[in-house]
């Protein structure tokens, strides 16, 4: 569905995308995870035909993307990071305008507008002026406006920024449902939880380069540990941390110790050790590592710090 072939994009002396190659098959829910300024929005804008790369090629559904060609744009829908709506107009007027620009007319346009309102659960507010909507409702309408022409490829550029949890869940469910109908979704975010929850494949991007690419499980295998155990810091656990240092990596984060066992270290040995110190099992929580750990491992920086 989408191919990026050695794509480079610069803004003056700043390299926003550095020789990026990527292939996304039809029907995939692809996540683009990276901090602000990593190059996510630039990649989206190149795919949407809003900008032209200095070198390389972008192909959508078999059609090369250029700023002048309109063909590739009919296959895609863009949900911009900002609320790209006419706030003084009603929700219905907005959708009719964007649908019209996609070439929809008459009964088809009306049917698609009705369908979009039903999908984002805003049918009862269709005649309200958009500026009277809550942030979450505006986000949902922002999404609906990109779907009227039933695109094969949906580009979501951080679509949940500033959205309350309830609206965020509604958006997630809607996107997953859309993906199940065969729509390819590219979802850029700097929230690892969103990428973990939604995406079948994730690309971690930083400083304009794709650092890692694969499913969540594949990415986690890049880590030198498989599990992570946290327990409270204090006098009672101090002797334990000294013992654990030879078994893996121990760090302290906000009053909590985090133990990442070296590969091959059996968890049964860990709990045998804690029993020997007389520490109850309820103090210890075992986690599966997150994308945060992968990002930290790859860049030496925390994703959240960005």
């Amino acid at each position, binding site marked *: 569905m989408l191919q990026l072939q050695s794509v480079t994009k610069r803004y003056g002396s700043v390299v926003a995308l550095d020789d990026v190659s990527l292939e996304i098959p039809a029907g995939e829910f692809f996540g683009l995870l990276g901090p602000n300024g990593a190059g996510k929005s630039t990649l989206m*804008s190149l795919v*949407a*035909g*809003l*900008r032209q790369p200095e070198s390389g090629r972008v192909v959508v559904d078999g059609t090369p993307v250029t700023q*002048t060609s*309109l063909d590739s*744009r*009919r296959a*895609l*829908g*863009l949900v*911009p*990071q*900002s*609320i*790209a*709506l*006419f*706030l*003084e*107009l009603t929700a219905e*007027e907005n959708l009719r*305008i*964007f649908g*019209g*620009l*996609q*070439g929809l007319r008459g009964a088809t346009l009306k049917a698609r507008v009705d369908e979009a309102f039903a999908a984002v659960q805003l049918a009862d507010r269709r005649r309200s*002026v958009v500026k009277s909507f809550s942030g979450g409702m505006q986000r949902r309408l922002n999404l609906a*406006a*990109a779907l009227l*022409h039933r695109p094969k490829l949906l*580009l979501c550029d951080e679509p949940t920024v500033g959205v309350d949890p309830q609206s965020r869940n509604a958006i997630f469910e809607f996107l997953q449902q859309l993906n199940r109908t065969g729509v390819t979704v590219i979802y850029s975010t700097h929230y690892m939880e969103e990428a973990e929850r939604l995406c079948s494949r994730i690309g971690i991007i930083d400083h304009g380069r794709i650092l890692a690419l694969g499913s969540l499980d594949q990415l986690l295998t890049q880590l030198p540990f498989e599990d992570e155990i946290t327990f409270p810091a204090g006098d009672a656990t101090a002797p334990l941390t000294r013992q654990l240092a030879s078994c893996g990596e121990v760090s302290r984060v906000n009053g909590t110790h985090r133990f990442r066992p070296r590969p091959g270290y059996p968890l049964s040995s860990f709990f045998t050790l804690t029993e020997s110190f007389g520490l109850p099992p309820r103090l210890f929580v075992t986690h599966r590592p997150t994308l945060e750990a992968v990002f930290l491992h790859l860049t030496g920086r925390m994703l959240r710090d960005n």
Partner: protein
Amino acid sequence: MSQILILLRKSLLNFSRARAAIAITFIVPIALIYLFGHVFGLFGNNPGPEHIKVAVVNESPEPAARELMRALKAEKTFDIVTEARNANGTVRPLTEADVRQALYDNNYRYALILPSDMYRDGRFGVRIKFLTNPRNEIEAQTVNGVLQKTIFSNVPQLLGQSLQRSARNYLGDERYARFNQTMADTIANTFGGDPAVIRERMEAGNFFGAATTGRQDEAPAVAGGLRRLDVAKPAGTADGTTQPAATAPASNDADRKDLFSRIVNIQTEQVAGKQTKNPMAARTVGGYAIMFLLFAVSGSATSIFEERDAGVYQRLLSSPVRPSHVLWARFLFGIVLGLVQIGVLLLAGQVFFGLQIFQHAAALFAIMLTGAAACSAFGMLIAAFAPSAAAANGIATFVVLSMSAVGGAWFPTSFMPGYIQTFSKMTLVYWAVEGLTDVLWAGRSLLEVLPKAGILAGIAFVVMLVSVWRFNRSKFFE
């Protein structure tokens, strides 16, 4: 094209929802035009400037000075002040010292002194002092003009008295009396009339027929004199005699004021715009309408920055829409907005000032359309070159005001220095205002205004091309 029309519809819908924009576009200009109508005297018949305070100190005992005072008081342009109030509330005649202080204090800005030696012995002519504190150049010129007109209307009598005094000095009393008696007898014999009355008038300096001897019982018709020379020879009576001048219609102020126009007869004929009810309104409303339109379309064009910053163009341009669609839709919106705004303002001009806007509808529409197109393109140009909406608004204010002043939106370019007049022809305001004035004032037809409409269309086209080029070059939409 359908993309452009959809975007145009969007802009119109957006505008219709923006109450503040509607108020600024229509209500404010209508209110200002109404206000300017009062300022420029466009309501009803414009009487011109009135009630300008002029102090007059009459130190002269001469009858001609009294006559001049009477004429000045009759002039509606002036409020003549002749008295000063004492500390105890009583009034006294003004003195030169009074008016000098009052001028300095800006109590009034003009004063006329008719000095006691208004006629200086041994010299022909009249001496009058005009003191000013001309804070306003235009007002000073107006006052000068009206004062000169009033004084020169009384020149015959003023000079007549001067001539009599010079003659008395030169001839001596006896020969002077004999000369006047001989002249009065000759006039009476030739034109009829009482030689004694004629002599009395001559000695008062009134050769030309104004009855100012001061006699209560005098018949104003008896003067005769030079005023009779420019009219047709009196018709013969039935018995073959000539009707004496003494029975001609009485002389009056109009006759006296008309003296110079009889000597130099200028025939004035208005060739164009004769039927226009309120010619000054035609120019004023047209000029200000163009200025307001420039402000409106500039403001509208700068909203392109708001839409860009809101990310709307990301969505639009990721659909089958090109940047040129966005720009031409905005240009068309500016034209529609301009047509409506000029139309509303001209309609207001019709309601307020009796402007005749439907007599040459086709010609008017041609100028409105091309003028609106030129203004809309101008708004796009400002947006294309400005780095931000705030900068665009600042640039627009500066350029619109400058172009309106230079282009003749405020007052005719013929008042301006030559080099400004040359420069004004390079502005769209000049051609739009001239075009509107051609239609509204001179009643020109569509064919006659086509050259000006063509120039405006050309300006619109070239400016729009430059704007599109600039938008593309600056990568505005990226």
